[in-house]
């Protein structure tokens, strides 16, 4: 019978199936970070349990780390304790760990792919919703809560029921200046933040296939903003070339065997999905969010929408609240919205290609005088690569801050935060109330668009720059 990519991965991981359909599935890779793991290790310790498969487990500190001089240590005592707790736990349980002074340190969803830890056909989990990023490799990757982190540590399995499947096909050529970020924002605008609830979304079509691995990761990363359990893209030559020779990738004979299995994974012709959506790549414009939910998205040529035109009372109430919070008036051109800060980074857009895209726009220009702009590379290796290419120089000359890797202003758990009322053009993934600091106002967009906004001081149509 014709199977989908999701079904093939699922079937290969069922350890046990109960009569009611509940499955125990095996987990191939488990990523750990400091925020969602302390209570899980504590649980193990209290029950006298061990980590079942340490080879399958990789830990890093990313959410709380400072992005300024690391030698100064961590100021906040709670952040410091959380990272020290992780360090004690990895030591006690024997888990591989990239510490703050390791150049491989970075955002958990950037380092997995970078090391070749992430591979097609795997099941991958992490106590973090953006684990969906790894689906770009054709791996079934999803976020879990801390109780499940403990469950995976102790048993290397999870109790799950299969998800429904959705395929979103994006066919055709993208317009100039339209990037992976614009594709995924467009999709979320179309299906809504609950549109993917209960589904695993497979992204297909020529516009997806033509993307680099970086672009594919950006798309899968934000699957969770569409409510989906996971995102998937079929592995192909682009995938294999990205993985080959990375430190944790299969080597020699194993490589050939692995590629044979990976080649068998793409969805078979005629396989059925529970839901199909078709998008014409031509319809996608450079996009930006105006509200406090990732679905509040419009082409940059749009105007702030009017709640009076919304008939659903719940949605109207949410819009009124969002406009009030964002300090925006219906009818304002998005390109007239003045910003205070620019953040380029995060697991959505903190990879080398993102920095290259930003540098291309910035080269020879200068950051608007009223704007504070920062670049936070996704990992130490991304930072190193960017410096090798001289990108840091372009950013610094233009007046950007060039920071150390971490989650940073994506959620502001470390010192990087917006003040109340400050407006930020951000390449991250969430524009929720308070996400970047209490009272913070976030506009999500692509790295090139964020760079353009830094220069003009307003949300900007990159095509007109």
């Amino acid at each position, binding site marked *: 019978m014709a199977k989908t990519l999701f079904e093939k991965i699922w079937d290969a991981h069922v*350890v*046990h199936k*109960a009569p*009611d359909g509940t499955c*125990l599935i*095996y987990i*191939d890779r488990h990523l750990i970070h400091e*925020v*969602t793991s*302390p*209570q899980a290790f*504590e649980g193990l310790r209290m029950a006298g349990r061990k980590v079942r*498969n340490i080879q*399958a487990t990789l830990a890093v500190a990313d*959410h709380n780390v400072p992005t300024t001089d690391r030698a100064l240590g961590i100021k*906040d005592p*709670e*952040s410091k*304790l*959380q990272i020290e707790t992780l360090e004690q736990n990895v030591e006690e349980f024997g888990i591989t760990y990239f510490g703050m002074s390791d150049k491989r340190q970075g955002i958990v969803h950037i380092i997995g792919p970078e090391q070749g830890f992430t591979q097609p056909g795997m099941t991958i989990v992490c*106590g*973090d*919703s953006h684990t969906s990023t790894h689906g770009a490799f054709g791996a079934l990757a999803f*976020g*879990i*809560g*801390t*109780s*499940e982190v*403990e*469950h995976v540590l102790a*048993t*290397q*399995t999870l*109790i799950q*029921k299969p998800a429904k499947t959705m395929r979103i096909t994006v066919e055709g050529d993208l317009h100039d200046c339209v990037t992976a970020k614009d594709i995924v924002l467009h999709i979320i605008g179309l299906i809504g*933040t*609950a549109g993917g*609830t209960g589904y695993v979304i497979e992204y297909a079509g020529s516009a997806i296939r033509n993307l680099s691995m970086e672009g594919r990761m950006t798309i899968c990363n934000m699957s969770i903003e569409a*409510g989906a*359990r996971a995102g998937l893209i079929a592995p192909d030559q682009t995938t294999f070339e990205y993985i080959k020779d990375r430190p944790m990738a*299969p*080597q020699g004979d*194993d*490589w050939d065997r*692995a590629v044979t*299995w990976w080649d068998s994974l793409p969805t078979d012709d005629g396989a059925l999905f529970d839901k199909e959506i078709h998008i014409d790549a031509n319809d996608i414009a450079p996009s930006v969010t105006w509200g406090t939910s990732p679905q509040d998205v419009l082409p940059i040529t749009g105007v702030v929408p009017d709640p009076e035109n919304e008939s659903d009372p*719940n*949605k109207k*109430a*949410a819009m009124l609240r969002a406009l009030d919070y964002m300090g925006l008036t219906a009818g304002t051109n998005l390109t007239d919205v003045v910003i205070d800060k620019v953040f380029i980074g995060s697991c959505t857009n903190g990879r080398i290609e993102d920095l290259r895209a930003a540098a291309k726009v910035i080269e020879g220009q200068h950051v608007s005088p009223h704007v504070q702009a920062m670049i936070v590379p996704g990992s130490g290796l991304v930072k190193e690569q960017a410096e090798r290419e001289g990108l840091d120089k372009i950013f610094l000359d233009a007046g950007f801050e060039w920071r150390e890797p971490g989650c940073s202003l994506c*959620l*502001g*758990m470390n010192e990087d935060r917006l003040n109340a009322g400050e407006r930020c053009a951000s390449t991250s993934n*969430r524009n*929720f*109330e*308070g*996400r970047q600091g*209490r009272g913070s106002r976030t506009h999500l967009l692509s790295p090139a668009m964020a760079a353009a906004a830094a220069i003009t001081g307003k949300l900007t149509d990159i095509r007109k720059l």
Partner: protein
Amino acid sequence: MQPFVKLTSIPAPLPLINIDTDMIIPKQFLRTIKRTGLASGLFFEMRFDDHGAPKPDFVLNRDPYTSSTILVAGDNFGCGSSREHAPWALLDFGIRCIIAPSYSDIFFNNCFKNGILPIAIPQEQVDALLKVGSDKKEITIDLDQQKIVCGNDVYDFDVDPFRKQCLMNGLDDIGLTLEKESFISSYEEKRAEEKPWL
């Protein structure tokens, strides 16, 4: 985990859609290394003003809702971050049951691991219960019968049988899974043979 059988309370009405986990428990409370004590951060930005004083108009700051064990809310509850701190904070405040038209998957899952019952019922029924909450009338959740009883009105709800068992008996998932140890070991042997690079 405390077993969940029956629960009676005046439900606290919170008629907002897309309540995300950043709203339920903002980042500054995620630095803890414990599961308890998070009630003070629950809905922090909606519940407290800039000086940390409770906002009198927020539902959970008003009697009788300060002691509600049931929360009624809008569509897509618990979307966003996977932080289990969200159900921990709700539980620490005393909430054992949430009623909404729909939930995000991860939050929904996390609730069951902490003895919280998330009930999904149609919008009209949620609207009716929001009204019951505003009128300060009690409702009873009967998990065994899968019914919400409020006066003469009774609403049925669905719950996964396995999760129901775990909730009603306060069972720990890890203990249950370890009973399947032989299945896990044989899977691992087969995996080592077929895909040695893993």
